[in-house]
């Protein structure tokens, strides 16, 4: 057998590649416009693959590229089988997959399982009356009283999870916007058809899916409608299919829940391969802002072990707001006060900003946060543009503020598109600090000390140390609360090869800080700093003393002979 159906996957690779991969999240609409119509497209992504390969990312995550009325950034799918025409066609998708694979880059796509657009033909049919063939494909009710235990997620816009459809004279169920009716997974036809959707895209060679909003697939009275056993059952069914027919492809679950609840989505290693770790993200910001490690160490100490062959997905920023659902009310108030000083920056339960403006443009902080991201347990996911420190425009509606065009060059339209300015899907940033004249790929490629080159170097170092992907994580105690030190290590292999150990020491403070670290267990070894390969003094009997520049960090290898 030469490979999966279609024969276009990356064959012969490590089936657990995702445990060591760096992901790169792409908004197709905003990445690069190949046909000059003002909107980014799949061919645009293909044209920029050389850049992504140079940067050193391992897997692209494409935001939804399906047919859609685009009332929710494409998360309102109106046809699962068709590419959104503005993005291209199936041939473009196949070409993108093949060209990516040729460069050793994998590619996964967003898939919304929970709901469709209200413009989807299934819903148009379902709403007509109570007897049509699709009548049962959505969740309908005579009143709006059922499932009262389910919270409302988009509190800024929605008042109820039920909306009356005048045509059918019944209420339909929706966990998100009222134009996104939930599919009825209790109907076996729906469950089977969605499995067909998965197969269809895996057959053209996609390496997996980011499964959007998975906790809400089923509804049961008397529950909060999240993480139900039926939902897990269904996901296990998907996984079985992937393992049997599409080995090496990955299911990444978006379940914005506490880690102890999220682990259920790994099953016993027989459900999703990856899950996002949501709560660690706001806490990284909180730790830096408060100059102390406890927000982070607390959540990591409450993060359960995951089955072998699974991995967390971790990120600093993405296309959504900085989510604050997974912090306490008190902490949310704090985060809003610190990072969303202008009320326009608040969105639902979060903060609608990109990384660089969040840290007041301080590159030292941005680098420190990336250093944490690249060395915490999990696979890091970069958001397009954060590698060059792009900004945001909080005056654009909804979540568009962080979805402006990628800034490739100081030329017209940021080098993103040759269309007329007025034709662009969103204006590129033009402010003096983050505008494309100041922040763009072309300029940073020329400048060896740019953030872009720094990011590339970090990814290169990370690639050399598999332990940063799968090693254990252990905090090293430092009395100084502003210092976060931890060890990633993997045990000696059966053959007796040496233990791979990386020690990370980070200063969360804007002031220089000292740290005395109890490293006696490595007595006699010489820590080697990984970015410069500089050997540090030998570890002795006494606590190991290091000093750190403001927001400074070290990655040390403590592997090798003493």
């Amino acid at each position, binding site marked *: 057998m030469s490979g999966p159906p279609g024969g276009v996957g990356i064959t012969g690779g490590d089936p657990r590649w995702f445990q060591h991969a760096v992901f790169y999240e792409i908004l197709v609409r905003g990445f690069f416009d190949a046909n000059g119509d003002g909107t980014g497209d799949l061919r645009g992504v293909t044209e920029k693959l050389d850049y992504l390969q140079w940067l050193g990312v391992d897997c692209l995550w494409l935001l939804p590229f399906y047919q859609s009325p685009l009332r929710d950034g494409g998360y309102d799918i109106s046809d699962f089988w068709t590419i959104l025409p503005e993005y291209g066609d199936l041939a473009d998708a196949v070409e993108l997959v093949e060209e990516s694979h040729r460069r050793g880059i994998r590619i996964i796509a967003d898939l919304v399982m929970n709901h469709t657009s209200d413009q989807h033909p299934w819903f148009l049919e379902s709403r007509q009356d109570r007897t049509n063939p699709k009548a049962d494909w959505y969740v309908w009710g005579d009143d709006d009283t059922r499932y009262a235990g389910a919270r409302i997620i988009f509190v800024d816009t929605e008042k109820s999870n039920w909306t009356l459809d005048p045509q059918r004279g019944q209420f339909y169920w929706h966990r998100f916007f009222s134009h996104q009716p939930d599919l009825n997974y209790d109907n076996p036809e729906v469950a089977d058809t969605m499995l067909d959707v998965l197969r269809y895209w895996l057959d053209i060679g996609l390496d997996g899916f980011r499964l959007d909003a998975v906790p809400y697939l089923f509804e049961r009275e008397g529950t909060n409608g999240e993480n139900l056993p039926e939902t897990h059952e269904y996901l296990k069914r998907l996984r079985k299919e992937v393992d049997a027919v599409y080995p090496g492809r990955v299911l990444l679950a978006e379940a914005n829940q506490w880690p102890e609840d999220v682990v259920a989505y790994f099953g016993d290693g027989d459900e999703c391969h990856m899950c996002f770790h949501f709560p660690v993200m706001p806490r990284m910001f909180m730790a830096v*802002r*408060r100059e102390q490690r406890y927000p982070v160490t607390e959540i990591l100490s409450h993060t359960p072990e995951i089955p072998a062959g699974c991995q967390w997905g971790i990120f600093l920023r993405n296309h959504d707001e900085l989510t604050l659902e997974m912090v306490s009310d008190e902490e949310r108030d704090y985060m809003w006060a610190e990072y969303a000083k202008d009320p326009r920056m608040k969105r639902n339960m979060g903060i609608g900003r990109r990384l660089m403006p969040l840290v007041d443009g301080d590159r030292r902080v941005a680098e420190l946060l990336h250093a944490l991201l690249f060395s915490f347990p999990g696979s890091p996911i970069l958001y397009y543009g954060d590698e060059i420190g792009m900004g945001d425009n909080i005056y654009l509606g909804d979540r568009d503020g962080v979805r402006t065009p990628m800034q490739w060059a100081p030329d017209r339209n940021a080098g993103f598109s040759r269309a007329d300015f007025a034709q662009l899907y969103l204006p590129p940033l033009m402010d003096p600090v983050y505008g494309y004249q100041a922040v763009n790929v072309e300029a940073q490629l020329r400048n060896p000390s740019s953030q872009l080159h720094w990011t590339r170097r970090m990814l290169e170092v990370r690639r050399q140390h598999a332990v940063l992907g799968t090693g254990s994580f252990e*905090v090293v105690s430092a009395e100084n*609360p502003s210092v976060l030190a931890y060890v990633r290590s993997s045990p000696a292999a059966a053959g007796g090869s040496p233990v791979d150990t990386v020690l990370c020491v980070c200063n969360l403070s*804007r002031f220089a800080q000292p740290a005395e670290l109890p490293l006696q267990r490595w007595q006699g070894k010489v820590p080697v700093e990984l970015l410069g390969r500089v050997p540090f003094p030998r570890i002795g009997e*006494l*606590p190991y003393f290091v000093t750190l520049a403001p927001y400074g960090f070290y990655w040390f290898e403590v592997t090798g002979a003493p």
Partner: protein
Amino acid sequence: MTLTAALPGDLGDLLAPYLTRQRWYAGPDELGPGGVSVLETAELCSTGGGSRHLYLALVEAAGSRYQVLVGERPAGEHPELLQGHGDGIIAGLEDRYLYDATIDAELAKELLPIVTGGAEAATRVRPVGAEQSNTSLVYDDRIILKVFRRLVAGRNPDVAVTTALDRVGFTHIARPRGVWRRGDYDLGFAQEFLAGGSEGWALALTSLRDFYNSGLDDPAAAGGDFSMEARRLGAVTAQLHLAMAEAMGVDHDRLVSGRYAAVVSSVRDRLLGVAADGTLPRRRVEVAAERLDAVSRPGPAIRVHGDFHLGQAMRADGGWYVLDFEGEPARPLEERLEPTSALKDVAGMLRSFDYAARFALQERGTAGTESLAAAGAWASHNGAAFVAGYLDQDGIDSLLPPDVDREAVLAAYELDKALYELGYERSYRPAWEAIPLAALARITDRLAG
């Protein structure tokens, strides 16, 4: 343990110069011949094929009793371990030398199984900061062993309280792992080591440095705001008091029948003393004292921490932990064991916030009116959060005076503490007397106003 004749007969005289160099030694600077009497010695273990020995020696000098752990290695074996530890060398003899065994990792490692009756063992040991009354060793970053140096007959209060709290299920302490007791004396106490912990004092300074550097007036607006931590510390303090009451009982009469009045009367006398210098307006002192006196129901008494400040609270991943239940070392033991108002600990922590704010200011070398206002704002913002967290705890009301008297009782203990600080600063650090003085002015003002 076997009695041994291996230690030299003149051990007492050999120990005299060593003893006087130790921080935990409390006697005169010099001890003449016969100044140290050896009460008991025992060999605890030997290593290196019987060539290295660990001895316990209980000695008495100038009326105090001490524990010395003596290490012995053969002469000629020149270990690095003595380097930089000149103070720990006891004697170089013809065929061997003697030294403080806590600096010898090989011997110190053997202490853990001895102390815990074989329940615990470790592969690594490191000493941590030397304290006034004990020496601490950390094993495998997992267990901390306090070796008590100055011995007092009876149960060591830290051991007694920590063990009692553990027994009633209070988890915000370093859990006991073993008590080493010999005759009437507690010699050592093994506890869980709070790896990854920082002292509350260090966290408060982190917040303060951020706040002073931000140039803001409102500490709540600064990124390093400490109030969430302060609030949680308040909650843990209330839980501690409830556990204390459960473990050691509640005394409903003690304060009502005179102990509170005694505190007020002592506070009044000392305040009038300060007023006599002209440092405080006498009239205000009198009005404030009347307010304290007017309290008819000062509330129940419980065993408290007794020396509660930011240095005794440790922040780790599981939240706040409370350490060191020995009480104020300067006070006599009976007084430290005496039940008193739970608000005494609350007052102690409020004073600690005040000190932290002023200390961080001193650090920066700025003490203008504006920065003093900033320090005051930080202390009262976080003090309020601490008290709110404390009072929010279910059940804590039962340990406190009724609402109408609460503020006055708290103020009485704050004043008591600030007056103690004033005495201390005037004796040892006159440059710091402004801190307690400002507190006295502020608290009396609050009471009189």
